[in-house]
């Protein structure tokens, strides 16, 4: 299908045009910055229908006509399309939010340029079928996000960005060493070809060593707990729409997607590895949740909550059953939408009050009705209150843990979801309920465009549970689950489908 390179080409062109023309007026950069994600949303739904008409057999695009395993290829299967749709929808809401929000910063065009580069990297990373190409996208996404985290150039932002950059770059180097080892053994970089060669002549020592390197690298990118310490600094320091992108989709596309794709489809999962996933997941769940309880800063609380929810997702993938993978994917989407919404809410609070400290806020419910209502929906979705999307995904994760006879994990998941509810209730109580302070009496609701994107995401939160209905499930979640479940069959399927 010829559409696939457009997912990379359009945002790249947008970034280029923005850096040329954006200087003239903020309106031009607003226009380009919003037009690109809008086109990409349309394109990703179009690709979904194309893929559906082919019954979800993967589509392989040969870059420059080079037949795989030579040259770079793009692969679109159920899992990639799910990620593409999520990424582009969240990106669109974030850019709509940025129109009023980023006015207070200088150099808006630089912001949009970096944003579009980040979008390019995420789209590329979920589409690519080449190991080294994946590394390149990881780095492009990472570099633009370092710059975006430091965008405010205040003390905190610079400090967070430096820390994030050092840790994330070291992680990339570990991934590069892993790729070097794989290349030295298989003499190829194509993912499907690596999988095929590893099936033909297995080498458990090499795969074990490479697994450790990749776990270190991708684990750091997706902020699993021993490697999480950059996230609570970096995500809160970025401007709100960027926090929404980072927490909502960046760590999922560059971290979890890459982790799952590499381990499930190329190296092949073993029981040891699945156990490591489960243990890392549980540790992240508990640590993130407990630390979130003590946070006084609104955005730091949300960042710790992200760690905890990523723990849920990894735990669910680690169960290894098809039901577990299904639940993990569903939670991934739910969390992307709800966490993006919550970070946008925090942005709207900061826009109106200039304050992030929970103890200084309070009683804002009447002054900022849209923010309060959407924030309530988002919080309740993440903490798992029916009938919001988050409830169904957490329920599925717990059921699948019980099915896999993982009672300890299921118990911890239930306990942590209670703690999640606790800290979100704390957030709600300290910001929107209670007594209104004197200084906030003349507060105004955020501008209309910010409200629109928040309302849109809140609507998604409300109706995401419907994705489980039979007709819809077969389009979104089932093909993605199947793509992961195929495991090392991936390489055979890809080679059969090369045009």
């Amino acid at each position, binding site marked *: 299908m010829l559409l696939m390179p457009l997912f990379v080409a359009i945002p790249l062109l947008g970034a280029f045009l923005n850096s040329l023309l954006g200087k003239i007026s903020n309106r031009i950069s607003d226009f380009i910055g919003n037009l690109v994600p809008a086109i990409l949303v349309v394109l990703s739904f179009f690709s979904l229908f194309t893929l559906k008409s082919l019954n979800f057999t993967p589509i392989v695009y040969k870059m420059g006509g080079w037949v795989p395993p030579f040259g770079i290829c793009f692969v679109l299967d159920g899992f990639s399309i799910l990620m593409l749709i999520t990424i582009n929808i969240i990106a669109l809401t974030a850019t709509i939010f940025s129109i009023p929000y980023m006015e207070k910063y200088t150099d808006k065009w630089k912001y949009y340029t970096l944003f579009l580069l980040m979008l390019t990297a995420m789209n590329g990373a979920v589409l690519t079928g080449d190991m080294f190409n994946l590394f390149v996208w990881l780095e492009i996404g990472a570099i633009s996000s370092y710059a975006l985290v430091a965008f405010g150039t205040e003390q905190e932002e610079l400090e967070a960005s430096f820390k994030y950059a050092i840790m994330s*770059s070291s992680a990339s180097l570990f991934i590069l060493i892993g790729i070097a080892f794989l290349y030295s053994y298989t003499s190829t970089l194509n993912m499907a070809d690596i999988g095929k060669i590893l099936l033909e002549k297995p080498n458990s020592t090499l795969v074990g060593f490479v697994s450790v390197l990749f776990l270190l690298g991708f684990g750091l990118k997706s902020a699993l707990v021993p490697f999480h310490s950059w996230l609570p600094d970096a995500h809160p320091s970025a401007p709100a729409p960027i926090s929404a992108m980072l927490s909502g989709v960046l760590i999922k596309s560059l971290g979890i997607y890459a982790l799952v794709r590499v381990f499930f489809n190329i190296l092949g999962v073993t029981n040891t590895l699945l156990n490591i996933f489960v243990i890392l997941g549980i540790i992240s769940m508990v640590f993130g949740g407990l630390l979130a309880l003590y946070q006084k800063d609104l955005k730091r609380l949300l960042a710790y909550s992200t760690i905890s929810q990523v723990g849920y997702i990894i735990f669910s993938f680690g169960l290894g059953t098809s039901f577990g993978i299904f639940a993990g994917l569903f939670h991934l989407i739910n969390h992307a939408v709800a966490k993006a919404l919550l970070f946008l809410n925090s942005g709207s609070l900061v826009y109106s009050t200039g304050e992030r400290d929970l103890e200084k806020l309070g009683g804002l419910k009447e002054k900022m009705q849209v923010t309060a209502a959407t924030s309530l929906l988002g919080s309740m979705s993440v903490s798992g209150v029916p009938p919001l999307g988050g409830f169904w995904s957490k329920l599925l994760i717990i059921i699948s843990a019980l099915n896999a006879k993982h009672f300890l994990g299921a118990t911890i998941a239930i306990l942590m979801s209670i703690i999640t509810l606790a800290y979100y209730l704390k957030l709600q109580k300290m910001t929107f309920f209670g007594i209104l302070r004197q200084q906030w009496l003349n507060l105004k609701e955020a501008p209309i465009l910010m409200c629109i994107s928040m309302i849109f995401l809140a609507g998604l939160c409300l109706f995401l549970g419907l994705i489980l209905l039979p007709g819809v499930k077969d389009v979104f979640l089932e093909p993605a689950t199947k793509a992961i479940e195929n495991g090392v069959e991936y390489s055979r399927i890809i080679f059969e489908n090369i045009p």
Partner: protein
Amino acid sequence: MIEYLLCLILFSVGLYCILIKRNLIKIIIGLGIMEYAVNLFFILLGYRSGGQFPILSKDVFAQFIRPDKSGNYIFVDPIPQALILTAIVIGLAVTCLLVAIALRIYEKYGSYDIEDLNKLKG
């Protein structure tokens, strides 16, 4: 074998530098050393002792490529070289950005010492 061990030592030096040093610039240099170690390792994977450049066009082949003593043609693997070229460029971008951020940090804090960077709790 010894080259690979040296790569490992170089990598460890870089990692040590990142973990132990307190000066921001030294940390950036440490990251650079790590990058060079990985790049060197990747290049070495493609090297064959006595190998020649792998250009198979007829004229070049007749003019430059010679078999070794036992009559075999040995070529180096060109792919790692192409990849490392990309990795070097990425490394350059990261280093540039880090140095820019370090300069800004110096403007704000008046110090390159990470102990003085204490606005965030981690």
